[in-house]
């Protein structure tokens, strides 16, 4: 969710590049809609996005059986703690010709890495937009 929140701060830049953004969740479309429309995670503790009603500006997609996730190699389906983890989060950049130009798993190793992740992804998106 932090990744989406950070990307939303760069929404204008993404739109200038003429890019389209998708967020894929390996879950049914009800939960995908909640993910898109409600700030359920970051509203629960103090952070720069606590008061925001929604954090996702891209198109949210439901991948209920995890087929697309498996195609892109991010499916995992294991138990972490008490919960099931369907996917490993990962960014993919695709250029104007339809070629996959970047696969980038977010770092998640520190509070500031979300910004660095998005900066990196946007740099790759700029290159893809020039192709």
């Amino acid at each position, binding site marked *: 969710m932090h990744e989406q929140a950070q990307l939303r701060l760069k929404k204008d830049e993404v739109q200038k590049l003429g*890019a389209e953004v998708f967020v894929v969740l390996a879950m049914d479309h009800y939960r995908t809609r909640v993910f898109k429309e409600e700030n359920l*995670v970051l509203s629960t503790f103090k952070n720069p996005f606590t008061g925001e009603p929604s954090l996702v500006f891209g198109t949210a997609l439901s991948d209920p059986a995890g087929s697309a996730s498996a195609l892109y190699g991010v499916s995992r389906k294991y138990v972490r703690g008490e919960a099931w983890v369907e996917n490993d989060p990962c960014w993919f950049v695709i250029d104007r010709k*339809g070629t996959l*130009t970047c696969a980038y798993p977010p770092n998640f190793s520190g509070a500031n890495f979300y910004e660095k992740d998005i900066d990196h992804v946007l740099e790759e998106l700029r290159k893809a937009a020039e192709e």
Partner: protein
Amino acid sequence: MTKHFLCVPVMLSAVLALSSPGRAENPSPLESYRNLKYPPTRENSDRGWQERVQVEFDIVNSAELGALQAGLKDQSPFVRSIAARALGIRGDKDSAEALAELVKTDPEAMVRVRAVESLGLLKMQPAVIALAKKDKSDAVQWVARMAAGQLKSETDFREPVQKAYEAGIKPDKLGVARVGQPAPDFTALTSDGKPFKLSTVLGRKPILIYFAVFDG
């Protein structure tokens, strides 16, 4: 004579059991899951996922309902979990009470998560779903909140999940996305349940895709 006569069926059964390749070579989908080389534990997060995906598809699409119902009482929490998930996706309303019992009594949160998730898809046992919102596990509480939301809606959230599984998955398509290669096309649903195909936008504009988890 009588003694020999009685022995024949026993001997025949033994011979058939030894010669029949079916049981050993074609284990049931649940048996395959029980015997996964890399069970779905955190240590195995990066290995064996392809097999876990394929077996899950097999279980949801083709496991016998009776076997799935029996699976809810399996010793392995992984088997109870996948059986609970499959019964919800298959729309087996006869299992609602057994799923509710799991939500209330199973010691493993990973099982209660799947059971309450399935009750949400089945739109059954609202009192148990409400109870699960106060479960000691945050993960169960979270899924229960989602299930409670599904109960309030008239939309069928289960059928699209089942259809997505029924579409199947080919082993040679797992993890084929490669940098420098054409991006693989896929189908998905928008958040309001409409079909989406990546190829409708591929090759027209730069695209950014994030495969997310609910909290990341």
